[in-house]
Structures are given as C-alpha cells and as structure tokens.
C-alpha cells in the first residue's frame, strides 16, 4: 500500500477530476459519492506502488468498472457502449442555455459513450490509454469514440437548430 502522505496528495489532486468523471457517467449525485470513495478504497487495496503516470489511468479504470458494474445490473455489455441512453430531460433547476443543451445531449448518450468522450475530450487521453481504462482494444475505442463523438455533435446540432427547445 502506498504511503499515507503520497495517497493524500494523489487523492486531493484526483478527487475533483474523478468525481466529475463518475458523476458524468452515473448521472446520479448520491451514488457518485459512494462510487468515488469505493474507487479510492479499491485503489489503495489493490494498487502496487505505482508512479503517478500509471496511477491516474488505473484509478479511472477502477471507477469505470465500478460504474459499469452498478449500471450493468440487468443490462448487457453491448448496451453499456451502444444504448442511445435516456431520453428524459435533465432537471429544470440546471442553468439554462448552452450548458443545459450540452447536459441534455450528454444525457442521451449511453454511460459507456459518456465515459469515452469524457476521457478523450476532457481528460485528453489517447486511444491506447482509454482502451486500458475501459477494457476494450484501441481499435474498438477508435470506432466507438468516433460514433460517440458524431452522436454528441449531432445532438448539439439539434439543440442549436431553430426548433431547439430551451
């Protein structure tokens, strides 16, 4: 197990990033807190003494698996990556405008697609790193990411269009 001081530094750096990622995938704030805590717990229990470069993708991998396991209860692996997602609108208490459009578009992606686009476009991971995090090969990541990106762009176009409901 890594030293407490090193863990504390790693945790303080990673907590907000990981929380955003898990929240974006799970779309459930209360569940998110538990999942993030469980992620760090598993990281401490299972991680060998990794350097930061290896530890960050590793912690994302644990989080991805935890969210996937939670989500999978009753659903298939294919649905994780391919399902078009929930169609209901996000809470009306969210800020209006662009942010709401993006939130709404993200809601319509599957959790797996949300995970892919987040890792690629927010965290800046390459296909190989994403592959190791989500547990598929990098060729599949390339294809799946391309589809997720196109879908998200199309949803953003819809919300930008003249008939957009804001």
């Amino acid at each position, binding site marked *: *197990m890594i030293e407490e001081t090193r863990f504390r530094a790693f945790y303080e750096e990673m907590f907000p990033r990981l929380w955003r990622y898990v929240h974006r995938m799970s779309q459930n704030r209360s569940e998110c807190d538990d999942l993030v805590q469980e992620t760090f717990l598993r990281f401490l229990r299972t991680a060998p003494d990794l350097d930061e470069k290896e530890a960050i993708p590793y912690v994302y991998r644990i989080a991805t698996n935890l969210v996937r396991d939670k989500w999978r209860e009753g659903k298939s692996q294919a649905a994780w990556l391919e399902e078009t997602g929930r169609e209901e609108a996000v809470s009306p208490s969210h800020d209006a405008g662009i942010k709401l459009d*993006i939130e709404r578009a993200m809601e319509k992606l599957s959790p797996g697609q949300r995970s892919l686009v987040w890792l690629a*476009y*927010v965290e800046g991971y390459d296909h190989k790193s994403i592959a190791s995090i989500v547990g598929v090969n990098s060729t599949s990541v390339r294809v799946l990411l391309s589809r997720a*990106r196109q879908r998200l762009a199309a949803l953003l176009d819809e919300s930008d269009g003249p008939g957009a409901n804001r």
Partner: protein
Amino acid sequence: MNVDRFCEQESTVLRAARSNTWDEATRHHAASCPICQESLRVSRALGTIAGQMSVPSTPDPRLIWLKASFAQRQKRSAFIARIAMVAYSILGVAFSMGIYWIARTTDLVPSAPLTTFHLSGNSLIPMLVLGFVSVALLFIFAPIYRHTSS
C-alpha cells in the same frame, strides 16, 4: 446511420487546442478538416460543462486510508490463517500416521482397533484412511478457525 470517421491528426489538433499552442500546419488542418472541427466542437462543449460542474468539497482521505489499512490487515490475517490450516493438516496426518505406527509396532496397545484395518500386509490403506479423516475434520473446523482468527 453512423459512418465511422477518423482523422490521424485529431489528437494533435486536440492537444494544440488544449495547450493553445498552434503551429501553422495544425491550424491549417483544423480549419479544413470536418472531423477535427467536430472534435474541437465536442471538446469545447465538454470543457464548458466540466468547468462549471460543482464538485463537493474534497472529503478527508484519512477515513479511506484507515479502511484500506484495516482491510489489508484482515487480508494478512486470512493469509496467515490459511498457512496455519495447511500446517495443521500436515501435522494432523503425521500425527495419525504416528499413532497408527505406534499401535502396530509396539505391544503397548496390542488390541488397538486400528490394527484391524490391516489388510494383507498393506499398511498404507489404514494410514491413508486416517489421513483423510484427519484432513476432513480439519476442513470441517477450518471455517470456525478462520472466523475466530480474523
């Protein structure tokens, strides 16, 4: 229907956008490539919501650390308990075989019922039976041992 579209320059363009350091070739490519433009648009959109997400204040990691330490100690105890169980199994077999050997080779227990297992001079069978019985008993009691040791 989605058609899978890729651009080899996508990661370079995204890196340039993220660090805001564009070279002329990358800038020119980004301006003319629809895939990279789409990627940039998605990246900016996600950057917007990422920057505006309200993250709860970071909880104290001490509790997580303590939980993990406790789990590690438990794991170590379970490992030691497993080793002890194997050692006790070996000892149990050796002890049973020893008792049988004493019963057979000395006159201290001339009517030892164990000797009745003796079949056609083959002393291995009763020893094996005793060994199996010992191991079976240990496996029956092992969960109790594991439970009490953790």
